[in-house]
């Protein structure tokens, strides 16, 4: 009952304060706007090239160029180059994309080629400082270097879109999530514990006959809930802007994961929240002022961020990672995204994090009963 009263007060403190709610939701919105703007700046210009290419001589290669360009939604318009010099000038001035000059009898010469001196040449005049001209050059030279060879190299990339981008997600996402969680938990936890201690409102509660463990749980649980709201807002911001940032659709980005993957991901994220909140709560309880508490918290933040990026540097890690709080969830999230997690690993990570949080809450309860920490000079 008393635990409930404490928890209700924490929620009331947050939800009745419009400014607090807004400041919790704003990071997600900002991330969305920022990433979307960055994304459109990165990707929009490249769309729809319409190449205007002067052509002298002839080869079937031109058709291959056209069809490859079409695959990227680009179009090629060939113009006969009657005056080479005028065509070159047009390229220089940006009026045409490029000039391609095939030597006479190009295709026959290529076919007849037996390894001696080359009888055929193709000249491409382009302007690498113009994006479309350079894109055309890259495309054309790609086609031409493979043109009518005795053999073809057939690259076959079996990575589908999901796993291609899962590497991006897998490395960046867990770090992002942990950082977002931490920052949304930080201000409210500091405020709710170190702030109340500094202002003397926590002492007023300590005079009442509430059990210290109930007070500790009554604080940490709602704070974790509220932090999760902030983190979800940031997370949605990331998820909806990420496709724009990397230039593909949301379903292409995450559509490859099934329900179980999402569930595991969610459980893992959920399990980090109480760890982070109770860790910040613990240092806040031990600190004498909000200032001191935020000093400790920034150290804590560095530790937590290190734990969340270390997996990127250390390749293979043994099963022991699943017993290190936070690190286990990060490794778990990555394993989910690379589709290589076993259920027991995920559950072990979640269990370890929960146990660790509960231990921290009991530590907080101990500190709340310590007269040196609560009433020391």
């Amino acid at each position: 009952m008393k635990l409930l009263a404490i928890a209700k007060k924490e929620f009331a403190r947050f939800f009745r304060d419009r400014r607090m709610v807004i400041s919790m939701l704003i990071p997600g919105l900002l991330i969305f706007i920022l990433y979307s703007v960055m994304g459109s700046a990165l990707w929009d210009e490249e769309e729809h090239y319409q190449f205007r290419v002067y052509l002298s001589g002839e080869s079937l290669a031109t058709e291959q160029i056209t069809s490859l360009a079409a695959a990227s939604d680009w179009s090629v318009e060939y113009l006969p180059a009657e005056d080479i010099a005028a065509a070159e000038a047009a390229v220089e001035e940006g009026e045409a994309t490029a000039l391609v000059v095939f030597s006479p009898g190009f295709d026959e010469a290529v076919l007849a080629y037996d390894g001696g001196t080359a009888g055929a040449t193709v000249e491409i005049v382009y302007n690498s400082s113009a994006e479309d001209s350079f894109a055309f050059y890259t495309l054309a030279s790609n086609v031409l270097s493979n043109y009518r060879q005795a053999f073809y190299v057939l690259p076959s990339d079996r990575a589908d879109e999901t796993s291609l981008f899962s590497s991006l997600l897998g490395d960046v996402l867990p770090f992002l999530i942990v950082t977002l969680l931490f920052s949304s938990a930080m201000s409210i936890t500091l405020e709710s514990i170190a702030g109340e201690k500094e202002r003397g409102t926590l002492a007023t509660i300590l005079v009442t006959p509430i059990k210290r463990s109930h007070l500790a749980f009554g604080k940490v649980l709602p704070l974790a809930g509220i932090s999760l709201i902030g983190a979800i807002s940031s997370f949605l911001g990331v998820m909806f802007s990420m496709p724009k940032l990397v230039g593909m659709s949301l379903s292409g980005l995450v559509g490859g994961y099934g329900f179980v993957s999402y569930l595991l991901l969610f459980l893992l994220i959920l399990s980090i929240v109480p760890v982070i909140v109770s860790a910040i709560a613990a240092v806040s309880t031990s600190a004498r002022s909000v200032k001191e508490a935020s000093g400790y918290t920034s150290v804590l933040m560095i530790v937590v961020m290190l734990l969340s990026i270390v997996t990127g540097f250390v390749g293979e890690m043994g099963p022991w990672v699943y017993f290190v709080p936070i690190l286990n969830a990060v490794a778990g999230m990555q394993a989910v995204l690379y589709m290589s997690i076993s259920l027991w690993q995920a559950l072990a990570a979640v269990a370890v994090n929960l146990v660790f949080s509960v231990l921290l809450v009991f530590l907080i309860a101990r500190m709340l009963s310590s007269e040196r920490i609560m009433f020391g000079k």
Partner: protein
Amino acid sequence: MTDEIVRAEALRKTFTLSRKQQKIERTSERRKVAVDGLSFSVHSGEIYGLLGPNGAGKTTTLRMLSTLISPDAGDATVAGHSIVHEPQAVRDHIGFMTGELKLEGFFTPDYLFDFFGALHGVERETLALRKRELFSRFGIDKFAEVRVQDLSTGMRQKVSLVIAIVHDPEVVIFDEPTNGLDVLTAKVVTDFLLELRRMGKSVLLSTHIFSLVEKLCDRVGIIVDGRMVQDGTLAAVCGQQTLEERFFALYEELKGEVV
């Protein structure tokens, strides 16, 4: 059951001093005996004042009695419960007030009354009844829905006082009731304490202000350096002298002996 609602027996509290504190106290001792074998009792229905200079150990004593800190030696009973063995029960029977205990400014008196009522485990109906009674008695109903941060110091003080007795405790312990308050707010507090006595509560307060003791207290205990120098009814302690004269006479006597 005697009519001694609070009974302190040989309470002792020692603190370990930090370097900084050693400098402030001008001592090389690591340990400071803040309360040194203190015994006294508060009778039911009276206002008892602990009078002493700065550093006498008043706050330390009251904190021990309200179970915020525990004594190194000795014990005390509050409403029949030992502060050492049943701190939880003691907290059920006391209202503790000091200037250091604050209310969260974001909430209204109405909300905070219910909140602290819940922390004390007061039944909902009892709580509603008590709220109506106390709020009208102390004129809080007019600003019950205004956030504490928007109230004047006097109003805020009233709210703090009323919330300290939300659970209808037999004993109210009050450290430095009028410290740092202007005359108007101080009057709010002293009137409140007199009202409490009228309601049949027992009050234990600490102060270094002679006039406050003279105005409020039935009995007084004078403490210096953590020890009880003299206690009894005001008349018995003072004799023909004023409380101030009596205090300085005692103090000189004591310090004369020590030197």
